[in-house]
C-alpha cells in the first residue's frame, strides 16, 4: 500500500553482491544453476554479501533494514550511494540509474542528495565540529559565509549549539554521533542513509538519540534507510521494516505485519519477544460484530466501552479495566466488531487465533 501511494525515491532492482576475485563467474553460475551460498563459497572461493535484494522506499518514508551482524545489511545500504558496486542489479534514485552515472555526477549526488551516518561515527579528528558538519559543502566549493550559516543551522538542530569550534575527541560518544547526524543533514539532502547509527551507544543515550532523530525526521521528512540489528529500534522508528538474513531480504512489511504475520520461522523467532501492546490494533483481534451477536445473542452495547479499529492493544487494556463488558469497535459510527477480554489477553500474548477464540 505504502509503495503505490507514494513516489519511490529509492528503488533497488535485484541487487547481488558477490565478493571475491571470481565474482563474475560465480554470478553467471548462480544465474544459470542457482547455486547456494555454500556452493559458491566452495566452488569459486567467493562470499555472497547480498542476494537478489529488491525494494523501494517512498518519499518521506523511514525504511528499516533489520538483521544480525553479517547478514549483509551494511553492504546493501552502501549500494544506494554506490560506495559498493553491485555484481548484478541496479539502484535508481528519483528515477536515475546510479550505476550508470559518471564519477562527477555520482559525487554531486553524494554531496547534495544523500546524507550518511555511520556506526563508528567516522568523524575527521583533525577538523572542528563545524568543519566536519559542512564537509560536503566544502568539497563542492561553497563559500565560507554560507558554510558557517549552514553549519549553525545543522548544529542547532541536533542540540549541539556552542560546540562548533571543538574537536571530535573532546566530545562524548553520543555527542559525536549528533555531529554525524548534523553532517548528514547539513546539505539538506533528499535521502538519509543510517548505517547502525546508534548501535555503538549505551541504551540511555541511544534512546535520546532515537528521539532526536524521530523529531528531526518528522520535521524534515527525509526519505530514510535505517539499518539496525535491534528489532525494538526498527519498530520504534520504521514505517516499514525489511528483515535480512544471509544476504536475503526475508520479509518486508509494516511493523504490525512483521510481528503478527512473520513470513517464516526465522522472523517468528525474532519477533517472539516483542511486546504486542503498541503494535497490534483492535482490528486484528476483534470478532465481527454480527458474528458476536449471533453467538452471544443479547447484551446492550450502549454501555460498552467504544474503541476504533486502529486503536492499539494498550488503549484497549485501559478501556477493559474499567468495565466487565466487552469492547465495542466502531468505525464511521457503525458497529464493526467486538473485542472480548479473552481475545484481548490472547492478543497480548501474540497468539494468532486471538479473534477466533470465542467464549
Amino acid at each position: 500500500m505504502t509503495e503505490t501511494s507514494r513516489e519511490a525515491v529509492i528503488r533497488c532492482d535485484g541487487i547481488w553482491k558477490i565478493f571475491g576475485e571470481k565474482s563474475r563467474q560465480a554470478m553467471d553460475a548462480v544465474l544459470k544453476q542457482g547455486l547456494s551460498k555454500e556452493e559458491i563459497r566452495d566452488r569459486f572461493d567467493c562470499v555472497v554479501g547480498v542476494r537478489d535484494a529488491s525494494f523501494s522506499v517512498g518519499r518521506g518514508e523511514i525504511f528499516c533494514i533489520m538483521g544480525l551482524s553479517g547478514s549483509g545489511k551494511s553492504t546493501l545500504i552502501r549500494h544506494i550511494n554506490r560506495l559498493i558496486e553491485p555484481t548484478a542489479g541496479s539502484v535508481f534514485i528519483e528515477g536515475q540509474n546510479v550505476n550508470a552515472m559518471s564519477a562527477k555526477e555520482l559525487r554531486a549526488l553524494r554531496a547534495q542528495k544523500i546524507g550518511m551516518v555511520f556506526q563508528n561515527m567516522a568523524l575527521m579528528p583533525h577538523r572542528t565540529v563545524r568543519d566536519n558538519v559542512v564537509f560536503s559543502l566544502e568539497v563542492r566549493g561553497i563559500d565560507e559565509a554560507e558554510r558557517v550559516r549552514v553549519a549553525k543551522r545543522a548544529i542547532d538542530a541536533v542540540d549541539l549549539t556552542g560546540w562548533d569550534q571543538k574537536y571530535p575527541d573532546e566530545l562524548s560518544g553520543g555527542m559525536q554521533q549528533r555531529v554525524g547526524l548534523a553532517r548528514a543533514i547539513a546539505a539538506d539532502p533528499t535521502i538519509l542513509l543510517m548505517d547502525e547509527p546508534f548501535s555503538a551507544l549505551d541504551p540511555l543515550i541511544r534512546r535520546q538519540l532515537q528521539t532526536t532523530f524521530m523529531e528531526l525526521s518528522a520535521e524534515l521528512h527525509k526519505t530514510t534507510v535505517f539499518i539496525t540489528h535491534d528489532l525494538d529500534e526498527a519498530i520504534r522508528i520504521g514505517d516499514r521494516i525489511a528483515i535480512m538474513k544471509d544476504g536475503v531480504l526475508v520479509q518486508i512489511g509494516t511493523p504490525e505485519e512483521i510481528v503478527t504475520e512473520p513470513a517464516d520461522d526465522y522472523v517468528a523467532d525474532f519477533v517472539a519477544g516483542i511486546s504486542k501492546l503498541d503494535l497490534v490494533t483492535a482490528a486484528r483481534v476483534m470478532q465481527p460484530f454480527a458474528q458476536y451477536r449471533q453467538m452471544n445473542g443479547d447484551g446492550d452495547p450502549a454501555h460498552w466501552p467504544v474503541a476504533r479499529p486502529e486503536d492499539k492493544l494498550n488503549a484497549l487494556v485501559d478501556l477493559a479495566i474499567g468495565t466487565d463488558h466487552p469492547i465495542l469497535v466502531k468505525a464511521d459510527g457503525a458497529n464493526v466488531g467486538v473485542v472480548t477480554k479473552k481475545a484481548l489477553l490472547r492478543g497480548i500474548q501474540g497468539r494468532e487465533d486471538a479473534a477466533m477464540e470465542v467464549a
Partner: protein
Amino acid sequence: MAEDKTFNWLDPFSSVDLDVDGRTDGIKQWAIANREAIQPIKGFFDGLIIRIEAALQAVPPVIMLVLLVLIAWQAAGRRVAILVAACLVALGFLDPAAWSLAMTTLAIVISSVILCVIIGLPLGILAGKSDRFEAAIRPVLDTMQTIPAFVYLVPVVMLIGIGNVSGVIVTIIFALPPLVRLTSLGIRGVNPSVVEAARAFGATPNQIMFKVELPLATPTILAGLNQTIMLSLSMVVIASMISVKGLGNEVLRAMGRLDAGKAIVGGLGIVILAIVLDRITQGLGRSGRARGHRHWWQAGPVGLVVGLVKGRG
C-alpha cells in the same frame, strides 16, 4: 678459469667464476663517459647549496641562535626552546670555528632533506596507495639503507666529481628510505571509515588525499622526516671523504692525524646539531590532541605576538 681445477660438486662456488665484479666495474666507465651531460645539473644544485650556506653563514651567530631558539619554541614549546638554547651555546663555545663549521654542515643537511622530501613524499604516497608499487620499491629501499656507503661513493664521484653535490646525493641515498616508508605507513594507517565517509559526502580523490589522508598521516610522515634528518647527519663524516666541508671534515682530518681532541670537538658538534634538529622536528610531529587543539599561531612566540597585537587592538 676452471680448467686447472677439477669441478667440485660439494663446493661449486669456488670453482665457477662469473666475473661479476669485472662486468659491473663497467659502471665506472659509464659514469666517466657521461660526466659532461651531468655537469649543468650539478652546477644548478651546487649553486643552490652554496646559496643556502652563504645565507646561513651571513647571519651573525647570536642572531642565528635566537632565530633557532624561536623556531624551537614555536615548534616544540618552551622547554625544548631552553634545551636548544643551551645546546647551541655549548656548540658555539666548543671551538672558535665550531659555529661556522656547524652552519656548513647544516646547509648540506638542509639541502639533502629538502631533496629527500621532494623525492620521498610522492614516492611514499604512491607506495601507500598501491600494493604493487610498495612491493617493487621495498627491495630498493632495503638496498639503499644497507649497502655500505663506500660502494656507491666511487661511482658517484666518477659521475659528478667531488664536492657538495656528490655529498648531498650520497646522503640522499642513505637518508631517503625512512621518509618513503613512514609516508606509506602513515597513508595506510588512516582510518578507512573516515576515508569512506569522505567518499560518501562527495569528495574527489584529490580532496580525499589533501583534506583527509595527508593531514591524518602527518604525525607519521613527520616521524619519517625526523629519521631522515638524523640519518643525513650521520652521513656527514662519510660525505666529508668526498670533500664536503663542515663538522664531518673536522672529524676526518682529526682521524688522519690521530688527534683525539679535535675528533671529539667535531663529533660533539654533530651530536649537538642532531639533538637540536631532532627535538625541533619531534615537536612538529605531535598530534593536535597533544597540543590541546591549539592552532600554531595560538602558541609559542607567534601566539605571544598575536596576543599582544589583539590586546592592543
